């Protein structure tokens, strides 16, 4: 009994630590400009939603939210299309060089982001893509290649060969087999990939920072950074902006965490 109480105390303590930064975001966002400069107490004396409303409309966070949604959405769709096709080829079709190509994609996993960052930016310049959404979406899509290909290939391999044979006998072509047999069966893996792509893309800062230069195209992380680098950054506005960034991620995670957890386990085992 004592042991059980101790376990709950430990878990609750760690939960408090985990929630602490989010409590600060809420607390900071609800304070007004004067109170936020005080001593760092957690409970606002006179909570107000004005900061949040101001950040969302006057500071154009609805525009940045839209930009983030666009980049994240297009990246996710791109990843699903490109790597489900590739995963199908690697799992089902036989062609010379298959293993070599597969290994090549996995090798990308070991290249640190910083090694690629500068060449990617120079390439964007050469292709005239610097400062544009495609300029960041293409490297984002490519960056997920190792994990996406690995998880989708493994998932498509579990489809029994008889299903494919019977589809063949019914006269279905390759694309048809892929679309109506493999994709539905691979749905959990596809959702996992969508999540493991969408969340880091939503949070991405470094490549976006060195690529996008026009404030009207800023994504949420850049807009937040921009607020902080202004002459007199206000903590209550920063925390309101932070809240706008994390809330969609938290909702997505809470709703779909089963897929998240499976994906993380699969990524390590594979």
């Amino acid at each position, binding site marked *: 009994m004592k042991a059980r109480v101790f376990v709950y105390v430990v*878990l609750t303590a*760690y939960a408090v630590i985990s929630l602490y930064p989010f409590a*600060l975001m809420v607390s900071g966002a609800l304070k007004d400009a004067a109170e936020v400069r005080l*001593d760092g107490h957690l409970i606002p004396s006179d909570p107000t939603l004005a900061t949040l409303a101001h950040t969302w409309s006057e500071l154009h966070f609805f525009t940045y939210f839209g930009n983030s949604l666009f980049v994240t959405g297009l990246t996710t769709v791109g990843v699903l299309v490109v790597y489900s096709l590739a995963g199908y080829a*690697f799992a089902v*079709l036989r062609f010379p060089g298959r293993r070599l190509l597969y290994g090549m994609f996995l090798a990308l996993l070991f290249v640190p982001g910083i090694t690629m960052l500068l*060449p990617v930016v120079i390439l964007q310049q050469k292709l005239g893509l610097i400062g544009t959404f495609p300029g960041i979406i293409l490297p984002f899509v490519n960056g997920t*290649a190792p994990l996406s290909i690995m998880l989708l290939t493994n998932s498509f391999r579990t489809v029994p060969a008889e299903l494919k044979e019977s589809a063949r006998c019914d006269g279905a072509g390759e694309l048809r087999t892929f679309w109506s047999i493999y994709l539905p069966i691979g749905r959990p893996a596809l959702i996992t990939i969508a999540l493991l792509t969408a969340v880091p893309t939503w*949070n991405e*800062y470094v490549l976006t920072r060195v690529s996008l230069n026009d404030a009207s195209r800023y994504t949420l992380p850049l807009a937040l950074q921009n607020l902080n680098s202004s002459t007199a950054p206000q903590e209550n506005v920063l925390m309101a902006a932070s809240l706008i960034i994390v809330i969609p991620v938290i909702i997505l995670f809470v709703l779909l965490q089963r897929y998240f957890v499976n994906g993380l386990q699969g990524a390590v085992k594979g």
Partner: protein
Amino acid sequence: MASRFRSREAWTGYLFVLPAVALFAVMGLYTVGYGLALSFAQWNGFTPKWTWVGIGNYLDLIYRDPAIAPVVQAAALRTLVVMIAVPVLTVLVGFPLAVALNHITRLRAAFRTVFFLPQVTAGIALFYAWTYALQPDGSLNYILRHLGLGSIAQPQGWLGNPSTALPTLIVVMVLGSVPVAMLLYLTGLQSIDQSVVDAARVDGASGVRTMTSIIWPLLLPITGAVVMLNLRYALQDFQTFLLMTNGGPGGHTLVLGLESYNLAFVSGFKPTLGLSSALGWILFVVALLLAGINLRVLRSRA
């Protein structure tokens, strides 16, 4: 007939991987090759031509250049500290948490969800919240003073004091890496055959004894995976540093990844792009060595 079928299958295969391969060729192979070439040259990003310097950039970084080598060496030492501290702390926190979670049934899912929040939201918003908490008159100092622990409070701020800045950043990184470790340990714990544990109990082994001499050894492969993941994370992550301290105060939290970033993007007209690339490649080689060691360890165990 059969061979025609096969060649048709091969063509379909190539067609299906074509988008992925095309993207990889441009965004992966080309950029990697370009970066490697650049690491042997001097360039500021503006002049039309590169100046080839052979392996000069590598030598400058490691020992030759009196302005850069000492900075890189100090950054390498800090990176090493992070690479030791983050995996060790992640195991030390993640394993007991998993054991605790495995011990309960009520609220297990709720706890797991909450623990994961610092992992899924890792990014600028979370880092700014921490920075806000760690300021001189921030929430953490406030809480410590009100708990009668004012002597530990940091009047300069946790990130402003050179001696607490790096440990503080390490703690923030560990909070982000614990959830995955905990999840992997939890999966491992649930796959352990309960009869093995019961047998030990019957033989009179205490709870602690069962933990150290049966459960911990059975989960060693998971510890291996957790350590590997976090070595890679500690080697490659510089975003936390860039956003929370930008290497400060006084360069006390400058790590190799951040130095490579600075050489590439905040060097103005100085011809340091080649140096930045060379440093990126040094990090790449270290990452490959780590992966190689990992593979060998896994093979030898099998």
